[in-house]
């Protein structure tokens, strides 16, 4: 089998495993924040609604976190199995960033997750709250390091190429490389927005079904506040991130815009069928000048076109173009949901507007789709490079690995992850159908016995 096949299969395999993985941290980063909020409100008010909410959402958190752990472990070894040249050459830069993620985030999360899930009776409410906070902080630290590593591949800085590998001159320049701050803010906000949509969607489902009224109202109200704040914030951050990309990775932006010629008064294409072979678009529906206005804030602004570089240096335009439109379209839909929620709240009908609740239910998984689309834009848009304009993807692959091995493992990944995802959804839906466990009165008078189980006294391994 020619080596090209192995490389394309390895790219498909990595795209699949990393896309699968990112679904779970996207939810846990944001959900951890919600859990901190629920527990803090409970400790302050002693209102049992908050405890019920915590106990319900921590189960979904634990289920999701487990999926994130097992799918993440795969990635830390896949860098080496499939991309050994990339590991050898960029290892001195990216290795320490990933090492710091393990040291400062993974151990923190793993160490305190056990206490968060099983330790309520063992450590008392304050220490338990501390454990929840540390897990939440761990998820953000993890995002910090891995996004720094990813951003360095987009906008390398602070290192020079010596004797066949990168050598770091300035670690601060590596960590805080030009695209990192925006990417970190954009992704963290995406996580929180996605979690808000999950919380609002599931709560809206209960409100529509007329079950778990008190807790569902409380959660729906908070999640709708969160969407109202986060959706516009995310649109602003996305715009700033895009301008940063225009400065450092102009061809990615050209692919997002479906723009072939470098020109002023460039239109924004609402719809188009980019054709990389002919280097043009079919069936364009466009808003005149809009691209120049968005990117340069002036109709006469000159925006870059893909033809500035030869075809073999261009990213695959179609995927980038369409993923970008899916992401942006969903972003504005989230904004609409937030505004509608605010209007309904102002009218005093937040819990009674049927179509608002239905929209929230429909949008439950939409944050994941938007986040994945965003990642497609930024990762496919980086092609044909793994390190932008410095190391090509074809030079990153493991030379000794055969296409047959990559194909076999790819098929196993498809089957195993497909089955796992089915089991995850099955148990998730089971948890949602069952709903939050109401507390018995006598339980709230004493210290709550456990966050996790329903029966007091039997929840934590006895001494």
């Amino acid at each position, binding site marked *: 089998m020619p080596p090209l096949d192995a490389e394309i299969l390895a790219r498909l395999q990595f795209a699949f495993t990393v896309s699968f993985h990112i679904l779970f941290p996207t939810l846990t980063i944001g959900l951890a924040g919600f859990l901190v909020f629920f527990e803090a409100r409970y400790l302050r008010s002693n209102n049992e609604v908050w405890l019920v909410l915590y106990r319900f959402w921590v189960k979904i958190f634990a289920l999701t976190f487990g999926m994130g752990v*097992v*799918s993440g472990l795969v990635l830390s070894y896949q860098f080496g199995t499939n991309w050994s040249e990339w590991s050898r050459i960029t290892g001195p830069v990216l290795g320490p960033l990933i090492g710091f993620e393990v*040291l400062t985030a993974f151990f923190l999360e793993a*160490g305190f997750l056990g206490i968060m899930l099983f330790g309520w009776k*063992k450590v008392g409410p304050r220490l338990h709250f501390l454990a929840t906070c540390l897990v939440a902080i761990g998820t953000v630290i993890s995002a910090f390091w891995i996004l720094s590593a990813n951003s360095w591949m987009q906008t390398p800085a602070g290192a020079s190429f010596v004797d066949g590998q990168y050598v770091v001159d300035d670690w601060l320049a590596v960590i805080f490389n030009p695209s990192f701050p925006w990417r970190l803010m954009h992704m963290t906000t995406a996580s929180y927005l996605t979690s808000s949509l999950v919380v609002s969607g599931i709560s809206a489902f209960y409100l529509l079904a007329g079950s778990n009224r008190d807790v569902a109202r409380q959660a729906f109200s908070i999640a709708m506040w969160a969407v109202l704040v986060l959706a516009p914030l995310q649109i602003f951050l996305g715009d700033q991130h895009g301008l940063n990309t225009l400065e450092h990775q102009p061809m990615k932006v050209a692919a997002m815009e479906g723009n072939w010629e470098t020109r002023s008064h460039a239109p924004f294409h609402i719809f188009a069928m980019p054709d990389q072979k002919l280097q043009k678009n079919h069936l364009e529906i466009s808003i005149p000048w809009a691209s120049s206005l968005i990117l340069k804030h002036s109709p006469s602004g000159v925006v870059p076109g893909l033809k500035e570089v030869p075809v073999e240096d261009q990213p695959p335009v179609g995927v980038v173009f369409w993923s970008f439109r899916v992401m942006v379209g969903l972003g504005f839909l989230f904004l609409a949901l937030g505004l509608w929620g605010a209007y309904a709240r102002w009218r005093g009908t937040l819990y009674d507007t049927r179509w608002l609740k239905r929209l929230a239910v429909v949008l439950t998984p939409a944050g994941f789709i938007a986040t994945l689309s965003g990642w497609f834009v930024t990762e496919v848009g980086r092609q044909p490079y793994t390190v932008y304009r410095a190391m090509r993807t074809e030079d990153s692959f493991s030379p000794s690995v055969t296409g047959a091995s990559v194909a076999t493992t790819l098929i196993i990944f498809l089957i195993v992850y497909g089955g*796992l995802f089915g089991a995850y959804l099955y148990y998730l839906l089971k948890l949602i159908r069952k709903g939050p466990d109401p507390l018995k009165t006598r339980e709230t008078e004493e210290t709550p016995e456990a966050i996790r189980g329903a029966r007091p006294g039997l929840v934590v*391994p006895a001494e």
Partner: protein
Amino acid sequence: METLAIISGGIIGAAILMYVVLDGFDLGVGILFPFAPGEKARDTMINSVAPIWDGNETWLILGGGGLLVFFPAAYSIALPAFYIPVMAMLFALIFRGVTFEFRHQAHTSTHLWNRSFFWGSLIAAFMQGVLLGALVQGVEVKNLRYTGGMFDWLTPFSILTGIGVVMGYGLLGATWVIYKTEGEIQEWAHRAAIVMGSGMLVAMAAVSVMTPLLRPAIADRWFGGVNLLYLSPIPLLTFALAVTLFWSILSRRELLPFLSAIGLFILGLAGIAISLYPNIIPPSVTVWDAVAPRSSVIFAMVGVAVVLPMVLIYTVYAYSVFHGKASAEGGYAHHEHE
């Protein structure tokens, strides 16, 4: 740079040791799972590791990540060379890892997740042993790139080390169960520890005989000149610990069998380190061939020096929160549908 390379090697070795001991006992619990006396015993066993397994497995990420940090060249040689066993191990760890959550949610399908836990643990342990054997027997390298085939790792020697690690993790698991349980399960764990311990010692003896036969350099390391004298504490201590292990199991001690098993693992890994030094990928790649540039090594070492002590402190704390005997109720095994 030479000192830095040796310290880096020490850090990787310590991470591997921590991983093998910590995840070793919870993988061992999985290996013994189907043989446990009843579903209640299985609930107790899984509860005894549920709050800590995630932290234990993190050491594996540190081992892989650490290799990429300190020896990117070794990482880029070893992983393509061991492509198939690494992938098999990862798939096995996936099945095993999700069991903790899914088994807890499951009602009618508990037996399915029991099987997933057993096979996941068994295959992961076996593949880790295979990886160890495949590394010790040597890897074909030219110009710091792997030049062998996809199946070079598969030899009688690597299969033997695979079986040895399965037995060894089984021993760690059984002695952990002795420590964490009482009554019927503990009785059963005593018997399991004897079986697994015997198997592990036979495998260790066979590996010790075969390793010096792999390459003259290894035989020379152990038997050349006065080396045997300097290195004699290793086999002597191993013998003493093996005796302590069986004595402590038979005399119904609770913690000592577990500590003896850990001691045996430390000595086994020390023996391998002595055989391989200064190679990180034997027979040709040394730690100083493969070490990362100075700026990366120093940066990572500062991180290790500052953060790792904190990690150790709160890991000890997390363990201490869950000290004492485990029970069948609570934890993940708590069925809320009853």
